[in-house]
């Protein structure tokens, strides 16, 4: 059975949804409080879930990066361990430097909470290995600071290394402006493809009766 560690900071609010999702997929899931300095032994995947760690004070994710558990997560990632950051988790992973770029306030300044179609840009990574390139997924988004920024050189690297995971798009797969992100980027991975971050919430798309189960094939890739 795969072991998933879900981090919990003060203000995290998607920890239980994330735990539910991975347990539904047959994993042993442990919630790890941010004051811990080690990850559970034999962890196969670390998830930094969504929410508002430290009330988004200073900048989204800025304070969480100094939590004791983050040193363990950085060491785990640098040793090749798989890490997934969802929403606030994505913001935290950019703040600690495990992922390039940064997330700014949405271009329209609104908190956007709704289902959003996403286009799979690259599937040559573990996270999206069960999705097809150009496949359109329907996944909820819920954020105010999802406006992904990266400088021109950084963007070129993302493209050259196939690091762009998903783009905001219309139902036909044409990229659309949702929050002002560079080239409508909704999620990326690092160059070694073991650290993944995205603003949309796959853990909220597990049942078609509740709108979409497209999150299942995304999350399943990480625990295959």
């Amino acid at each position: 059975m795969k072991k998933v560690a879900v981090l919990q900071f003060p203000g995290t609010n998607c920890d239980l949804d994330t735990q539910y999702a991975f347990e539904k997929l047959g994993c042993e899931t442990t919630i790890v409080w941010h004051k811990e300095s080690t990850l559970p032994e034999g962890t196969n995947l670390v998830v930094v879930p969504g929410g508002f760690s430290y009330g988004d004070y200073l900048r989204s994710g800025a304070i969480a990066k100094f939590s004791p558990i983050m040193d363990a997560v950085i060491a785990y990632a640098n040793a090749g361990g798989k890490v997934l950051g969802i929403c606030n988790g994505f913001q935290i992973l950019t703040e600690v430097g495990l992922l390039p770029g940064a997330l700014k306030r949405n271009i329209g300044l609104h908190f956007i909470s709704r289902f959003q179609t996403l286009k799979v840009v690259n599937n040559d990574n573990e996270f999206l290995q069960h999705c097809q390139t150009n496949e359109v997924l329907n996944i909820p988004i819920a954020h105010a600071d999802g406006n992904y920024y990266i400088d021109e050189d950084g963007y070129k690297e993302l493209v050259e290394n196939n690091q762009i995971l998903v783009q905001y798009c219309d139902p036909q797969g044409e990229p659309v402006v949702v929050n002002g992100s560079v080239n409508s980027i909704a999620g990326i991975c690092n160059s070694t493809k073991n650290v993944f971050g995205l603003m949309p919430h796959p853990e909220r798309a597990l049942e078609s009766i509740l709108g979409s189960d497209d999150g299942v094939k995304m999350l399943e890739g990480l625990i295959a």
Partner: protein
Amino acid sequence: MKAIVNVFLKEGVLDPQGKAIHHALDAMNFQGVEDVRMGKQIVLQLSTTNREEAQKEVEKMAEEILANTVIEDYTIELVE
């Protein structure tokens, strides 16, 4: 000594909040505003009286946490 740290989005990085304020000023008929940038100010009360030491320490704080240098610039002003 007091250190006043101002943090702003870098030139060339679009500032959605500054833009919204600019639109509001236009709508209120304030003329002649060419650009608006919105930032934040962090005021630190320091125990040291050594300016050089304060400058060095606050720069380190700005680099490590107060600003995200991927998207933001900062200025430091020391006040006795």
